């Protein structure tokens, strides 16, 4: 098990560090927000990410990708977390790529993978239907109709659903589940952009007698469960990596503040009560890093228990990142409450990332069940 980075990964990490710090720092998110940007991320950044190979980090070489694996994708995600970079990385370069790669037929792969990698096509994954992530309870139905199916139902929290060219929809087909690739402009598809607390975007999408052909099925009818396994594991690990980056960065801000701010004639970092809280948080962040590395490694190794490990990592990161954000606000005092500082932006992004694809409670519950108690 590789809990340390190899040379390739270290190089990638360095280049990602430089890239995002320069091209997509927190100020970019602020600008997008304050300008009420139409899509909520920078298309030119996405293009540059494609040129760097970041968008195709999980795409096989035969489909023009750089195919560096999950540890590499995690490192990119971590840096994006550090800079609060808004981009469709999770939805297109991770969720869609993993689904296509593992379950698409050759035609689907050839059609979509290179295009995603080139930053041309955007995808969104439509799973959730209620206020909490619950992939076991899907009620959007695909009923046979002519040569194809008709989709009826409703999806919420479709990350990047407001800009995606194609929506991957999880639907019930009789007793089984299937995944359909639906172009966003299909008749009967209604997309409502939802702006989230973290200034990023998702969509609520309703499907009203949406007609799809058999060719729009990803893989085969009934592959839905397998596909979900694949994409959820990938997405959760990448979100955990993003939270690692965000919480590490907000912790660094906090520590800097502790070393600079004066009250009562002392640097506040001299107060032992604050020292102990910072040190405890440091330990939690080290555990968080180990959890993320384990999850990414398990995916790269194709470990049998990868799903369980990824779930544990998502659970741990949800709670550690939350703690880091809460401590950051409190230790910054009144300043932490102002929009002027970035602290609140980290708090908001962490809250959203923590909720996406299952919050800590969800994964703790899964983990307990998995272990049989």
């Amino acid at each position, binding site marked *: 098990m590789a809990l340390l980075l190899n040379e390739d990964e270290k190089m990638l990490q360095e280049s990602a560090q430089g890239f995002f710090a320069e091209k997509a720092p927190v100020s970019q998110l602020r600008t997008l927000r304050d300008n009420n940007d139409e899509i909520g991320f920078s298309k030119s950044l996405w293009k540059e990410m494609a040129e760097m190979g970041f968008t195709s980090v999980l795409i096989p070489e035969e489909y023009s990708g750089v195919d560096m694996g999950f540890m590499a994708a995690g490192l990119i995600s971590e840096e994006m977390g550090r800079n609060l970079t808004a981009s469709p990385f999770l939805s297109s370069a991770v969720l869609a790529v993993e689904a296509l790669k593992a379950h698409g037929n050759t035609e689907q792969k050839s059609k979509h993978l290179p295009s995603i990698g080139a930053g041309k096509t955007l995808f969104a994954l439509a799973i959730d239907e209620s206020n909490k992530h619950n992939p076991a309870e899907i009620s959007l139905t695909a009923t046979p109709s002519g040569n194809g199916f008709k989709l009826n139902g409703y999806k919420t929290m479709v990350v990047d659903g407001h800009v995606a060219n194609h929506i991957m929809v999880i639907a019930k087909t009789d007793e089984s589940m299937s995944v359909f690739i639906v172009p966003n402009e299909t008749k009967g598809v209604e997309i409502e952009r*939802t*702006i989230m607390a*973290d200034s990023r975007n998702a969509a609520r999408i309703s499907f009203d007698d949406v007609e799809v052909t058999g060719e729009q099925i990803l893989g085969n009818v009934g592959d839905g469960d397998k596909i979900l396994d694949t994409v959820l594991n990938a997405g959760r690990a990448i979100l955990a990596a993003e939270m690692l980056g965000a919480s590490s960065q907000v912790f660094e801000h906090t520590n800097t503040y502790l070393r600079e701010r004066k009250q009562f004639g002392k640097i506040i970092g001299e107060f032992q009560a604050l020292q102990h809280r910072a040190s405890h948080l440091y330990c939690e962040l080290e555990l968080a890093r180990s959890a993320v590395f384990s999850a990414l490694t398990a995916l790269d190794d194709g470990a049998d228990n990868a799903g369980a490990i990824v779930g544990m990592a998502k659970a741990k990161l949800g709670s550690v990142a939350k703690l880091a954000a809460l401590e950051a606000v409190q230790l910054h005092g009144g300043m932490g409450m102002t929009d002027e500082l970035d602290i609140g932006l980290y708090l908001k992004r962490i809250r959203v990332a923590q909720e996406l694809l299952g919050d800590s*409670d969800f994964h703790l519950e899964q983990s307990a069940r998995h272990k049989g108690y």
Partner: protein
Amino acid sequence: MSELEKFRETTKAWLAKNCPPEMRKPMRSEKDACWGGRNWVFQSADQKLWLERMAAKGWTAPSWPQKYGGGGLSRSEAKILQQEMNAIAARNPLHSFGIWMLGPALLEFGNEEQRLRYLPEICRGEIRWCQGYSEPNAGSDLASLATKAEDKGDHYLVNGQKVWTSYADQSDWIFCLVRTDNTGKKHYGISFLLFDMASKGVSTKPILLISGRSPFCETFFEDVKVPKENLVGERDKGWSIAKYLLTHEREMIGDYGAVKPLSEIIADNGYTPNPILRAKIAEFEIDAWAFAQTMSRMLMEAKAGVSLGAKSSMLKYYGTELNKRRYELMMDLAGHDGLEWESERSNDGHLARSWLRTKGNTIEGGTSEIQLNIISKHILQLPGA
């Protein structure tokens, strides 16, 4: 019939006759609160009428002496007035830092001239006051404030900056802590000044919070001239006034009783928390219950004549931490729905904004850390605290 019973009868009758119907409806939003002042725009004719009628009786400040524009009521009478207003759900006719904060300080520390000048217009809602305490480098450590007031013979020349000044941009006058001496210990050399926000050299800038717009401002003073008679109490000894007001504030903030139990929120929304979240809610609910019982017990002790003292720090600390926990759990329950920031459905992200706003509860009015320091020192009497 006793005097008090008679008072209750006449009060009830007066309120029935004089409180306009609209003023008996619950406030729909913060805008329905009447703050008065030079620039106040009444939301309705009834709002104006209600203020005028109450002010004419001195009942915007029922227990202040009549000569200062108050109602001159005894403690028992004031209580009856409040009960009868509650009985018809009458709104508070005037929200005012003048009544809540400056007035008590002037009654305690001001001279007669100051009381006669400022208190009546406060009672009539003619002048809206704001409070100039915190500074960028004097937050928890308020006494290290640096806004300078130089003695220029007939006036003070004020230079510096305040922060977290609530409604500074909408207020007419400010009561303000300034430094008139910086040669001694930091608690010495602080003075308590009053001045017009329209004075030359005063400017304000609203503060945007992580939760959105806020009443807070930054307030800047550049060569502001303040007449000497606007000094309250002794020069250089304003810290005692500040302390008086801070305790006052802490007790006002420490009110965290009446919120809907999470169990009802769960039922109302048809939430089905997963077993792990449910366990956290169960723990929270017990703590919230025990805290509510503690509020009641402290209230009873206070009524029985035992001063709360440093225990108000306990209520502030625990109550605000609890409120943060509460909103974390509400966000957990609401899930995706709670994350929307801009939509009618979410009332423009009301839950998310409230959640974010609670993060300030453990900072404003003395941070949790300060409250724990106070408990360590004054209750546990630990050394060096």
